[in-house]
């Protein structure tokens, strides 16, 4: 949709006269805070084990502390509550009881309050932490280690195309107003990469699925204010410390025109990746040995079905 359009645009914008070089999104850059265009900011798997230094963790701590200190902080909790309840759904879907559960990094335990029993060897992680960690593979490995064998990890993180409307509007505005742009929205993990990461961390029987949460706001300003209130402000090392008034005005107009709803509000998309991974145990079903099949795909046609008879 529009993000695809925005992506095409980014590749084309690379030839503008400012002479920027291509910067992979996962490296921290210094000097002038203008990133070269990438097809889509993404946290990529790399040879170095996947550890990156994209985020200023000190800054993130300060932002989270500030947001926790807000008097009306509960106003910004809606997204976490929603995701927390969806994770809890997935916990209930698993037809097992677990004596002990751990709810990590969830701030105000948005998941625990949806669960009445306390399960075990279950590690739950709230949507708060993972998209801000510099060492995602390491985090997943640690979670894997903390589990008992045959334990399960159920988690959620924002990823994929989250906030693409905001990202595109800001990029287009800065390009038109200033001749270049710098990243304002974090790079996110894609669904495919997440599967690989979970596998590399030692989890088996993986399930990864995506869910879109679309929240509607009066305008770009409210989007950014709420993100700040949630403690989700940008903290990448290569973030720019100011946003020009003109670019802000331009971005507001672009956001509304390109993505706005009929009633004048604008949507913001949060793509939540849900993941379930099990710690291996002998009781779990394993892939059978090659060559041990005793039915053939050819037999499919012999199954009686009230449908069209496939000839040949």
């Amino acid at each position: 949709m529009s993000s695809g359009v925005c992506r095409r645009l980014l590749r084309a914008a690379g030839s503008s006269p400012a002479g920027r070089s291509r910067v992979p999104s996962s490296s921290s850059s210094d000097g002038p805070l203008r990133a070269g265009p990438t097809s889509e900011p993404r946290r990529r798997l790399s040879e170095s084990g996947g550890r990156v230094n994209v985020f200023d963790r000190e800054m993130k701590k300060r932002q989270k502390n500030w947001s926790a200190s807000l008097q009306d902080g509960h106003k910004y909790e809606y997204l976490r509550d929603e995701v927390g309840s969806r994770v809890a759904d997935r916990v209930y879907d698993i037809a097992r009881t677990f004596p002990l559960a751990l709810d990590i990094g969830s701030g105000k335990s948005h998941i625990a309050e949806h669960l009445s029993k306390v399960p075990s060897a279950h590690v739950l992680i709230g949507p708060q932490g993972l998209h801000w960690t510099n060492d995602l593979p390491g985090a997943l490995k640690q979670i894997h280690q903390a589990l008992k064998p045959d334990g399960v990890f159920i988690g959620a993180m924002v990823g994929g195309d989250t906030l693409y409307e905001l990202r595109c509007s800001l990029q287009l505005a800065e390009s038109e107003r200033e001749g270049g742009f710098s990243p304002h929205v974090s790079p996110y993990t894609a669904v495919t990469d997440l599967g690989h990461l979970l596998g590399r961390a030692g989890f088996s029987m993986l399930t990864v699925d995506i869910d879109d949460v679309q929240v509607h706001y009066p305008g770009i300003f409210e989007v950014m204010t709420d993100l700040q209130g949630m403690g989700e402000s940008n903290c990448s090392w290569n973030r720019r410390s100011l946003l020009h008034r003109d670019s802000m005005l331009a971005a507001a107009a672009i956001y509304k025109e390109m993505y706005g709803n009929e009633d004048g509000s604008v949507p913001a998309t949060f793509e939540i990746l849900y993941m379930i991974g099990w710690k291996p145990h002998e009781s779990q079903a394993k892939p059978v040995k090659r060559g041990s099949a005793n039915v053939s795909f050819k037999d499919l046609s012999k199954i009686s079905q009230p449908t069209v008879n496939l000839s040949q």
Partner: protein
Amino acid sequence: MSGTNVWSRSREKMRLFPELFAQCAGEAATYGKCVAATTTGRQELRKDMCAKEFEALKTCFTAAAKKKAK
């Protein structure tokens, strides 16, 4: 920090943004359409491609701000 400083003053000004922006819906739509059009065309978006439309938007916005300040 006690009293007003550049941060609290500019944050106050920012709070007015949505209200002022709402008064310039027409100019905003025109500018937005101009930029959106460049994303579908073959040419890349360059600096000041929609400068005229943006100036109209900015004029409207500044005028609204002056009226508000009175």
